[in-house]
C-alpha cells in the first residue's frame, strides 16, 4: 500500500525542480514550463490531501487549478508571442524595463 508521503515527496521534488528552472534558465519557454511544473506539483499535493482526508474538496480545488493552469498557459504564451514580436527573442534578460533609471550625471 502506498503512503501519501511518496506522492508528497514526488510533488516536493518537482516543485524544487521548477524553482531551480525558474532561476537557472533565461528562455521564457523554460521559465513558463517551470512555473507550470510548480503549479502541477501543488495540484498533486492537493489531490493527495483530498485522498488523505477522504473528502472531495481538495480534488475540486485541484480541478479549478487545472482551469487556472489553462488560463495561465493562454496568457503566458500570448505574452511570449508579444515579447517575441518586440525583441525578436525569448530571452528574459532582454526585458529590462523594470530597471532603475541611472542618472546621467
Amino acid at each position: 500500500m502506498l503512503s501519501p508521503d511518496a506522492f508528497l515527496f514526488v510533488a516536493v521534488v518537482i516543485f524544487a525542480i521548477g524553482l531551480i528552472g525558474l532561476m537557472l534558465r533565461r528562455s521564457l519557454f523554460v521559465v513558463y514550463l517551470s512555473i507550470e511544473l510548480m503549479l502541477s506539483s501543488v495540484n498533486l499535493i492537493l489531490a493527495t490531501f483530498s485522498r488523505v482526508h477522504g473528502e472531495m474538496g481538495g480534488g475540486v480545488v485541484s480541478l479549478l487549478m487545472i482551469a487556472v493552469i489553462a488560463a495561465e498557459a493562454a496568457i503566458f504564451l500570448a505574452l511570449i508571442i508579444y515579447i517575441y514580436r518586440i525583441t525578436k527573442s525569448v530571452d528574459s534578460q532582454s526585458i529590462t524595463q523594470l530597471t532603475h533609471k541611472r542618472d546621467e550625471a
Partner: protein
Amino acid sequence: MEALLSLIVILPFLSATILGISYLIDSKKNLSNTYYATIALTTPAIVTLLSFVLAFEISTMPHDTPLYAHLFDWIKVGQFHIEMRFMLDRLSMIMVGLVSFVGTLIHIYAVGYMQDDEGFGKFFAYFNFFLGSMLLLVVASNPIIMFIGWELVGLASYLLIGFYHKVSSNITAANKAFIVNRVGDFGFIIALSVLFIALEGKGFDFEAIKEGIEGLSSSTLSFVGALLFVGAMGKSAQIPLYVWLPDAMAGPTPVSALIHAATMVTAGVYMVARFGFLYNEIPHIGEFIAYIGAFSALMAALMASFERDIKKILAYSTMSQLGYMFIAVGLGAYGAGIFHLFTHAFFKALLFMGAGAVIIALHHEQDIFKMGNLRTFLPKTFITMLIATLAITSIPPFAGFFSKEAIINHAFLTQHYTLWIIAITTAFLTAYYMFRLIFVVFFAHSTKTYPHLIPLGKMIIYPLIVLAIGSATVGFLGIGHGFAHFVALPDRATPAPTHLLEYGLMAFNPLIAVGGIALAYRLFGTNPKPSKANIPIKALFIHKFYVDALYDRLFVSTLRSLSLFFDRVVDAKIIDGFLGLLTGGYRHLGVKLVSLQNGTVKTYATYIIFSVSLMSIALIYILEAQ
C-alpha cells in the same frame, strides 16, 4: 509726568523706526535730506525739552523720591519679575538732560556734516536709535532694562562705527568695538546673574537691590562689583578693554562725538555711580577701580602724546578723562565723577566737532602734521576748540577746571597719594598733548595757506558756539560741591581740607597745566616735527605699548590658529571625513544596491526565492526548537 518720562525713551526709537522705514522704502532717493533731518532733529529737541520739564519737576522734589513710569510687565515667571519701568532720579535726570542736550547739538552738527552722504537717512535712523538706547540705559529702573539699553548702545555703536561699510578696515574696527564690548558685557551678565541669585527674589529694582544687599556677604558683593566693573571697562574703554576706542574713529566724526561725549563711553561711569550703594560696601574694589582708572588715564595720555591722527588724539584723551571719572567713582566721590562726566560731555563733544570741522574743511585730512596755521582760516573753529582745550586742561574758569580739580583733590584728601601723583602727571600730559594739537593744527607753519578749503555751514558752526559757551560756563555749577549735593549720590565721606590746603591744591593744578602748555609750545609752537621712535620708551608710546600686538598675539592669533585647526583638521578631516564616510558609504552602498535592481525578472525571482529560502531555514529552526 510719567507719560513724559516714557516719551523720552519711546520717541527716539519711534523716530528711528520711521527714519529707517522711510530710508528702506525710499530706494529711489526721492525723499530729501530735509525730510530726514526734520524728523531726526525734532526728536532730540523734543526729548531735550521734556527733560528740562522733568528736571524742573525733579529738582523741586526731595532727592530720594524718584519719578517712576511703569510701561508694562515684561517677564513674570515666579520670582523672576522684570518690569519695563523707568526711573528718573536726580542722577538719571542729569544724564537724560546731558545726553539729550548734547545729543541734539551733535544731531544738528551731523546734519551739516553728513549732508552729502548717500546714507543720510540711514545715518539718522542709527543716530536716533543710539540716543534712544542711551536714554533707555540711563532711565532704566532695574539692571535688566539697563542691560538692554547697554546692549542696544553697543549695537548702535557697531552700526555707526561701521557706517562707511565699503572700507573693510572700518568693518574690522566695528567688529573690534563690538567684540571687545562683548567681553565686558559678559562680566556684566555674570554679575547680574550672581546678584539676582544672591538676592533670592527680593526684587530686582535698584531700590530693592539697595535694600537687598545689606544681608549679603562681602565676598559676594566684591565678586559682583568686580564683574560689573568688567562691563564698565568694556563700555568705558579702560585698561585692558580700551583697544576698540581708537579704532572706533573709523566712524563719521559726529558718531565719535556722540560716543565720546554723551552716549556709550559714559555708560560705564554712570553704571558704577548707579551701583554706588553697592560699591560703598566694598571699598577695596572701589580702590581697584580707581587704580585701573588712573593707569588708563596715564597710559592714554602717553599714547595721545605721540599720536598723529587728530581724532585718535581726542579718542585717547576721552579714555584718559574717563580714567579720571573712574578714579572719582572708585574712591566714592560719585558726585565728582558724574560732574566730570557732565563737563567732559561739553568740551569733548566740542573738540570732536571742531576736529570734524577741520577734517571736513581739509577734505578728510586727519594727520595733524599736515595741518597748521588754521587759525586764520577757520577762526570760529579755532576759538571754540581753544575754549574746549582750555576746559580739558583745567585752566580756570573753564568747565574742566572745576570737575577735574575736584577729582584730583579728592584723591589727595583721601590719602591716595599714588593716585594723586598719577592724576597730576596725567593732567600735565593732558595739557601737553592737547596744546600740542592746538599748536600744530592752528599755529604752526604760519605761512601755510589752503586754497581749496571747504567753507563750513551754519549747521556745523552754531553747535560749536553753543557748546563753547557750555564748556566755558558749566563748571560753575560745581562751586562748593553744589553739583554733587544736587545729584545726591551716596558719596563716601571725605576728610575736610584746611583752607590753606584747599587753595594750595586749587592753584597747583592749573600751574601743572600751564607747565604742560609751555612744554607743548616749546616743542610744537613754531615748527613741529612728528615724534620719531628713536629711543625705546618713545617707541613704546608710539606703538601704543604694543597692547594691540599683544592682544593680537595672545588672543587673536591663538584663536585664529585654533579656528584654523578646527577648520582644516577637525572640520575638514574629522567631521567632514566622518560625514564623508557616511555619505560616501551610502553612495557606494546605493551604487551597489542599484545593481540589484537590474530589471531582469529572473533576478527578482531569485530574490524572492532566496528570501523564502531564508524564511524556510528560520522556520525549520523554530519547528525544531519546539
